[in-house]
Structure formats: C-alpha cells, structure tokens
C-alpha cells in the first residue's frame, strides 16, 4: 500500500511563545509553562496526506522527535485520521539542531521502510529554519520540492507540484519516492471530530529510543549537532517613545501631523 510519512513537531503554542524570554542578567532562557501544540504548518502536511488517503487508500504514519509529552500531538494526528504514530524519544536526542534532527528523523523513516512520500511543514514555528525537510531528503537520498502549494498526482510514479517562490511559483515534476515541504496554501486542515477522538483512544503510539534506532549516540542530539549556541543576550532599546494623548479624534489628528512632518502625507 502507498505509504506516507508526515513529520510533525510539537512546538510551544505560538500564541504564548512570546512569554519565553531571555533573562538580561543571567543571559539564560527564563522557563515558564507554555503549552505544546502541533506545529501549524504540519497540520497542512497531515491534511495533504489524509486527502491522498481518501483517494488512494494510503497508509498515513505520523513521525515526531521530541520529549514523551510530544505523544499528545501524535494522538491528535491520529484522532484526525492518521493510521500510525511513532515518537522518537530518548534523553540523547535533546538539544538537536536541524542537522541532527533531520538525521534522527531520517533514521526513523528508514526503520519504517518502503515509504513512498515524506511530507514536512515548510517551517516549524519555533525553529523555523526550514532545513529539516531538505536535509532529510539528502540523508534519505530522495528528490525534494520545498514550499508546495498544490499537488496533482499524475500517477503512482510522479507528482506535479506547484511550489511557491518570491513573486510567483515554480511548476515541478517529481518522481516518487520523494519528500515535499508544504505551505499553508496547500489546503484547509480539517477540524477534530468527536468520533475521531474516540477512535484514537484505542490507537497506540510506538516509541523508539536511540537503541531501537540502532545509531550511535554521537550522531544524535547535541552531540550530533554541528552548530552550537554560544551566547544569549538581551537587546537594548535605543528609542524613547512619545505617547500621543487625548481623545481618539485628537490622537488621529496628532498622528496626521506627525505623518505630514515625516513627509508621508
């Protein structure tokens, strides 16, 4: 059966992420409770897979690397219709940069085996490097198209993909198996249904550790990451604000004055 792997990442809720701040004194991250959600673009990747499944009876597997808590987003994906959920979780995986993340996920895809398509979001909302998809493609020796906006399945062997680029788009043909990263224009993700949630209760999530993947510890997590963070600093603000005061009308007039002075009007 046609097998699709969707890589999904648990990210701090973008609506609360601004609460994560650097302590200007200690220069470390001030930890606070921010809830984890499914990375917004990965919902579009999952939706694409579910639509293909509806047409061709594909098997949809969601794959994530993260702490055990990330299991909850895999449950959510299964409630949305994914058939299988695999969580790559091990203390060794922590602190991975894009390269080590791509490596670990690629190893997971290899272990799943016989995959026809790997789908990723274009970017994660917290890392936002956009590297994980294309780097995985190299590691898996798959052709890649980034920023897919439209997918038409020509046949089981190749797909035509409309991919975004600045001020326009590219039309690409890609031979399967392949890896695609997707944008939000691709589709509108479905909402969770009550029956989906009930069904997902019975589905189990498979967890694979470093040992299960059978790779050396030096190749994953912080040890397997070519890049490291050496410094964190708070930035100083150089501007001083002047508030425009008064009624709404007065403030609007004051602003117009500023815009006239600035040559905008």
């Amino acid at each position, binding site marked *: 059966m046609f097998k699709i792997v969707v890589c999904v990442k648990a990210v701090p809720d973008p609506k609360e992420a601004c609460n994560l701040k650097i302590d200007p004194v200690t220069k470390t991250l001030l930890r606070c409770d921010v809830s984890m959600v499914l990375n917004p673009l990965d919902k579009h990747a999952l939706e694409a897979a579910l639509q293909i499944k509806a047409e061709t009876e594909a098997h949809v597997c969601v794959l994530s690397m993260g702490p055990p808590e990330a299991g909850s987003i895999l449950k959510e994906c299964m409630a949305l219709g994914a058939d299988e959920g695999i969580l790559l979780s091990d203390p060794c995986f922590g602190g991975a940069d894009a390269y080590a993340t791509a490596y670990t996920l690629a190893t997971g895809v290899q272990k799943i085996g016989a995959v026809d398509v790997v789908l990723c979001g274009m970017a994660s909302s917290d890392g936002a490097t*956009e590297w994980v998809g294309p780097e995985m493609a190299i590691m898996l020796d798959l*052709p890649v198209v980034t920023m897919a906006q439209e997918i038409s399945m020509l046949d089981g062997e190749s797909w035509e993909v409309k991919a975004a680029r600045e001020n326009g788009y*590219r039309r690409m*043909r890609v031979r399967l198996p392949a890896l695609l990263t997707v944008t939000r224009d691709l589709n509108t993700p479905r909402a969770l249904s009550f029956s989906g949630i009930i069904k997902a209760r019975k589905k189990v999530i498979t967890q694979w550790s470093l040992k299960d993947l059978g790779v050396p510890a030096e190749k994953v997590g912080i040890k397997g990451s070519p890049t490291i963070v050496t410094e964190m600093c708070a930035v100083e*603000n150089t*501007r001083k604000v*002047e508030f425009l005061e008064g009624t709404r009308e007065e*403030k609007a007039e004051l602003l117009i004055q500023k815009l006239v002075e600035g040559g905008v009007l």
Partner: protein
Amino acid sequence: MKKDNNPIWVLADQENCNLLAVTSQLVGQARILADVLETSVEVVLLGDGVQTHSEKLIAAGADRIYMGNDPELATYHPEIYTDLIVKLAKEHKPQIMLVGSTSTGRELAPLVAARLKTGLTAHCIDLGINQELLLEQKIPAYGGEITIVCPDKRPQMATVAQGVFSDPPPDEGRRGDVVSIQGPFLSSRRVQTLEVVMEEPAGIPLDTASCVLAGGAGAGDLNGWKQIAELATVLNAGLGCTRPAVDEGWAELETMIGQSGKMVSPDTYLGIGLSGEQQHMVGVAGAKVMIAINSDKKSPVFDQVDVGIVDDCQAFVAVLLEKIRQYKKQQVSCQ
C-alpha cells in the same frame, strides 16, 4: 589558534540573468570577514548569460568567480546545482559558505549543507569573526539575540536575507579571476522544473517604499485587516505584516517583515496591532521614524518606537482614515 587560509564562498543568486542584490551584499560582508581572516572571497555563479556579472562581483569584493555559464544551468535545478556546488566545495574546501535567504537559497543551502555534513544557520542578522576565528552567526530569539557557531564542521554555512547587509561601494580597480566550470553536469533528473511563473506583486513594493505599514495579530479579523490595507493605500505606503497575519490567511508570506521575511528600511514605519517581537522588529531596525498603535500600553513594542498610540486599532484606524480623507480634501481645496 592557527589561521585557516581556506576561502570564504558566496553562492550567487540570479533571476532571469539579473544578479540579486543580496549576492553583492553578501560578497561585501564576506570581504570584511575575509580581511579579518586574511583569506580570499570566492563566488559560485551559475546560470546562462551571467558572464557580465563577474566584474560586478569582483568590484564588490570577490577575488575569484567560479562561473558555470551553460543553458543547462539557466534555471535553478535542485539536484544539478547541489551536485555541482558540493563537488566544487570538496575540491576547494571553503571555510565559510554564505547563501541568500531567497526561495532558491532556502532550498539549495540545506541540500548542500546536508551533503557536506555540516551546520547551517538560518536567516542571520549579523555575521562576525570571533577570537577563535570562528564565524559568529547572530539570530534574534526570545526577545534578544543568540550567537551560533559551527566549531568543527566545514564549511560554516549561513543564510542571510536581502537588506541585512548594505550594498558594498564598488571598487572598480579590484582584480580577480574567473574560473569557468564546464559540464557534463549531473544527469539524474528525479525533479524537473516545468516552468517558472513570475507574477506582478500587488501594491507598493516593500523594499523601496518610503513609508511601510505592518499589521499584526491585533488586526483581529479580516475586516480589521482590510482597514489596515486601506490605510496603506491612502498613505501610499508598502503593506507588510507579522507572521500571525500570514497564518490567519490575511496576508501573503511574501509581505512578512522580519528575520525570516523581508528586511526594510523606510523613512517611516507604522506598526499596527503587533507586539514588537524581535523576529519582526529586526526587519525594520533601519527605519528612521517608528510609530506603533497597540491597545496595550505595556506592550514591548512601545519600548522600540518613537511614537506610540494606545488604542484599539480597528476603532482608531477607522477614525484615522476619515481624518486623512478630510485632510486630503482640504489640501486639494487650498491649492
């Protein structure tokens, strides 16, 4: 630490044979870094009909151009370009490789990095050389800035958006050589580009607009957004946005301002309903006068602007639009 004499590379980006500004900007910055490291700057320039650009790149600071000028290289092809660059890099061993954060660069850079098994930092806002002679790559994060290095793997790779570094003043007297790259090129064609379609961008281009408006999550809904768009039209301003506006589907990704979007430096910047997150604000750091409208007086955006208005943006912009219309009418009748 021993000095590494290996060169600094820049991957050139062109569109319809026009060299993109980010390429010269990166060459200019590479020159600055190379002078610290006492090494050379080399550019990989691929396309068809790109030979005229080598002079410009040398004047911008390059010492050598690896030029692949061939119909087969006319448009970016992920597999052919990656293979060619990786082979060249294995031969010449650059210590640093800089790539523009364009849609091509954003796909090509990770493909090359993964093949070379090295690190790649996304969307840097500054690059320097530290005491250990490593490339310091700065990115905004968590309301501040973080520094990333790639200590052991080579090349040290980074992408940078257009506008982060300024255009270097051309030095016409500079000398450099051009090394021509010949085929045959990779023939595996698992991906094919069928066509590249360019569309006229709507509205006033952000890069050149003297006034830029940016709308954020505080716009509230599509109607609130449309009002902000109307204000941009009335002010003859470029319309940009923050990421939530893209996520909501109000605005196009191409109009996002910030670290992973556009860098702009208008005379006047007006931020409406946005919180002043670093990743957005680095994109407008070069603005002369900055104004913010936000309903929360304590919003961090007000620490970063010159003029602040505390108000609900939907209600305020409606009044502002009305007042601007009145003002414009007066101007006309006075003439």
